[in-house]
């Protein structure tokens, strides 16, 4: 190539010029980069710094400890027990299958369990801890810890889980907790972020459900730093939450345990109330179930069995069950009539065994009738005809008004599910709900606690408490919430003359303590503890005239569902009333035969604070009672 000086000089100049232009453009662009850098890092620094923080900081909730529930003496009814868990982190375990196999030699871990855990491990990221086993014993946990070197990636954790030490006794009252469901969430307005935690336990029934918000407490929070895949790097800070508040109920665990044992084997319920302040000492319903199963898990077979049991273990018969009160209602009629002045206490009426109304006959339970009978004896022997006569004189409206003063037909405000309001019918009620006029026959039926009248054992106990004290005492279940005792104001007095109350009380005394009284066989021998009661036997079926002619079929010969309910109510001691007890045995038969003994036993148990002496019972019954008590499934008997 020959050298062309002129050309090369020209080319060289051009090159220099072009080179400078190019460099100038490059420098300009670098300036642009510099400005952009400045913009991002200095002008927009705040905004981006904030976004960087949002990337890496996560807020996790710290679930609070749930409030505890105690009985009146401080015995725990619902507590948080430590749930020992084994968790595994795959990235530290190495050969997960082998580690699990070794683990299965220490704690019960079947092949299926192991396969399930391995599947879970594969599904989640390497660093997410997976639960391997729960509800371990302390021994099992120690064994796992002792073998830690051979079990890489396996750690023990302690969680809190709800536990009911009294098991079946308070299943209906305290209720139970369970995992939050979509249904629960749809019914709650304020979405507490705690409810989003999977398997968070909330109260589903009973006190656990009604005082849920205060028992739950408030969540704490911790701020943690995470990386892009969500792995926790470190905790930055934390704010402790607030544990749920503790609740003391008015119930007595010992008494309740006795009540449940005494009712066992039947479809029955009983309520024990303090007549002075309305505190409920026992609210028993049999059969019951183990609420711990709701926490740990029912087997399908178990749950099916409970659900299909005709005795309905899941329902709280004491507060939800409504029954025709039968003869236990007669006190209301007597009070109404006396207060209204349509009858005097010593006025006598003739009972021929039936009462004719138009062309209908209303029968007394005693075929031949009671003859000439006054108020006292009408209660003592439970004559129906007396009341057929008297109720017509006073009228349903006044009877209803009197009954309402005693809490009948009203829903008492308790922290329980579905507390029944029962039914106290009136003419208006029938017009509105049956689109029919009230008939005199309805009044007659109502006067003996049949027909439309319905009451729950709770309402019966309330009724008797008010009768015993003459005050409008209100049932209470909460004794102490978060250290604050519920108010103990004296209930207002009922607007009923003292003499009227005295006359009726006297009749009840006769029922329990005099020879022809329907409750005599269930009397108390100890004079200072004598009861005043009333039996009731409520029909669930219609007895036809034909059946009456042939002879009314006995309860024992009928299928269970067609037998009469057995009821008994009482208060004691008569001279200085303390407690009222109401018991209902579904389809139990005669009230005096089947409900009265239950009430007596429960009453004495309450009065003597557990273990009543043999002397409280009539001499002839002492051995039998002693043997019966031994057979009961009581906690004391388990020792």
């Amino acid at each position: 190539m020959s050298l062309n000086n002129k050309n090369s000089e020209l080319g060289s100049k051009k090159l220099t010029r072009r080179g400078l232009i190019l460099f100038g453009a490059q420098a300009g662009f670098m300036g642009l980069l510099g400005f952009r850098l400045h913009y991002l890092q200095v002008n927009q620094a705040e905004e981006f710094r904030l976004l960087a923080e949002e990337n890496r900081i996560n807020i996790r909730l710290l679930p609070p400890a749930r409030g505890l529930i105690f009985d009146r003496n401080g015995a725990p009814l619902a507590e948080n027990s430590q749930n020992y868990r084994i968790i595994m982190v795959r990235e530290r375990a190495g050969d997960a299958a082998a580690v699990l196999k070794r683990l299965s030699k220490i704690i019960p871990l079947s092949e299926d369990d192991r396969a399930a855990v391995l599947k879970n491990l594969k599904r989640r990221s390497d660093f997410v801890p997976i639960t391997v086993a729960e509800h371990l014993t302390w021994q099992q946990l120690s064994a796992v810890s002792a073998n830690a070197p051979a079990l890489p990636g396996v750690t023990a954790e302690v969680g809190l889980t709800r536990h009911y030490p009294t098991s079946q006794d308070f299943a209906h009252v305290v209720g139970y907790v369970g995992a939050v469901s979509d249904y629960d969430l749809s019914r709650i307005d304020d979405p507490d972020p705690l409810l989003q935690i999977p398997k968070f336990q909330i109260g589903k029934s009973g006190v656990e459900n009604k005082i849920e918000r205060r028992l739950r407490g408030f969540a704490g929070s911790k701020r943690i730093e995470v990386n892009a895949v969500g792995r926790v790097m470190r905790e930055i800070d934390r704010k402790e939450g607030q544990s749920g508040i503790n609740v003391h109920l008015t119930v007595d665990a010992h008494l309740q345990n006795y009540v449940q044992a005494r009712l066992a084997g039947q479809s029955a319920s009983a309520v024990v109330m303090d007549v002075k302040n309305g505190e409920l000492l026992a609210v028993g319903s049999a059969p019951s179930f183990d609420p711990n199963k709701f926490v740990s898990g029912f087997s399908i077979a178990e749950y099916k069995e409970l659900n299909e049991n005709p005795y309905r273990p899941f329902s709280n018969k004491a507060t939800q069950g409504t029954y025709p009160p039968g003869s236990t209602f007669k006190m209301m009629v007597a009070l109404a009539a006396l207060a209204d002045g349509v009858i005097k206490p010593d006025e006598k009426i003739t009972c021929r065994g039936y009462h004719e109304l138009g062309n209908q006959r209303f029968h007394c339970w005693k075929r031949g009738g009671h003859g000439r009978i006054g108020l006292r004896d009408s209660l003592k022997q439970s004559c129906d005809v007396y009341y057929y006569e008297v109720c017509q004189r006073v009228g349903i409206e006044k009877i209803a008004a009197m009954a309402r003063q005693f809490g009948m037909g009203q829903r008492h405000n308790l922290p329980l599910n579905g507390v029944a309001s029962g039914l106290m019918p009136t003419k208006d009620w029938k017009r509105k709900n049956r689109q029919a006029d009230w008939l005199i026959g309805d009044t007659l039926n109502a006067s003996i606690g049949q027909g439309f009248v319905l009451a729950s054992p709770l309402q019966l106990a309330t009724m008797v408490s008010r009768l015993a004290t003459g005050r409008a005492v209100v049932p209470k279940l909460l004794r102490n919430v978060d250290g604050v005792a519920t108010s103990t104001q004296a209930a207002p007095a009922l607007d009923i003359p003292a003499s009227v109350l005295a006359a009726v009380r006297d009749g009840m005394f006769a029922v329990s303590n005099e020879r022809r009284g329907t409750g005599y066989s269930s009397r108390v021998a100890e004079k200072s503890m004598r009861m005043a009661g009333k039996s009731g036997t409520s029909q669930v079926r219609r007895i036809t005239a034909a059946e009456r002619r042939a002879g009314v079929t006995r309860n024992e010969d009928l299928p269970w569902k067609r037998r009469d309910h057995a009821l008994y109510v009482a208060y004691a001691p008569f001279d200085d009333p303390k407690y009222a007890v109401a018991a209902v045995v579904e389809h139990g038969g005669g009230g005096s035969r089947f409900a009265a003994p239950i009430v007596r036993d429960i009453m004495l148990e309450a009065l003597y604070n557990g273990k009543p002496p043999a002397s409280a019972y009539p001499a002839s019954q002492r051995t039998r009672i002693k043997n019966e008590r031994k057979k009961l499934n009581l906690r004391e008997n388990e020792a």
Partner: protein
Amino acid sequence: MSYLVHNVKTMPTGIGKILHLNWPLVLLISAVASIGILMLYSVAGGSFDPWASAQAKRFGLGIVLMIGVAFVPVWFWRNVSGLAYALTLLLLFGVEFFGEIRMGAQRWLDLGFIRLQPSELMKITLIMALATYYDWLDVEKISKPVWVLVPLVIIAVPMLLVVKQPDLGTALLLGVGGVCLMFVAGVHWGYFAGAILSVTGLVAAVILSRGTGWQLLQDYQYRRIDTFLDPSSDPLGAGYHITQSKIAFGSGGWGGRGFMQGTQSQLNFLPEKETDFIFTTLAEELGFVGGISLLLLYALIILFCVISGLSNRDRFGALITLGIATTFFLFFAVNMSMVMGLAPVVGVPLPLVSYGGTAMLILMLGFGLVQSAHVHRPR
């Protein structure tokens, strides 16, 4: 120019050549590389493995390579550039048929004892070929259409092959680098004006035709453009990288979060932090101060190359120096633009700093050529 032209007395010979190296350039390159190694230490979470130590070793090798190439007289490189270009072209063809895909983009050739990325090599050999062409061509013929077509073909063929790899980013940079060299060589500015106008027209056509029956790109390609223009519209998908990168820049602030304290990088919010996005890590940890310093270092490298090039009276030497400098500029400018959200993500590494052996070595080879031109410049 043959060696006979030069004044043999003034040309440095033997080991003494070492004194005539462009030392400022060497120092600047080493400084940048050291920063790179430091950042790789940081993104590895405070450890020399797996990136920092490997990079350091390769840089060491690179220095040796650079000095080796510098010692070889520049006219030798001029004579072999045609061959080098042809060989690289052959390798590119080879990659088409025998290559394996890595990271979904660049294709490599596994020759058993060494793994080559021909597209990287092409960056240098293309410049060499073009420089040789313009050194050979008479100055007055430069702007004649025929003689303009030839270099265009020289550029276009490897470009197409690289695009097929597929590696759009590298292909575009090859193209722009080549065209810049044509500009410096003195091709009439009219050609460039015409080209710019047609490109603008094309872009306008693409944008305006969107939504009509004649739209020039596919829908998903338009969406890519949308995401580029507003990465926040798809923060978890396509816009994720850029959004995270911008956050990292911002969170660095003026003075940075501190070495190894960059939360975006350390906590893995930033993907590709050891390659494409390493500048982001640097900006987050060392702040604006750190970022602008690196930019300044790069600018100085360019400056010293340009000074050396413009003062080199040998046409080939000047062209090759300016060509290499421009290539270097394009790569770091595009990378920085990309990570700062000024350009779409095209997967271009930051030269001398991003982790990557082949790119580093090829670059050192290029700087070797610059040094060779400098050492052997006519005095």
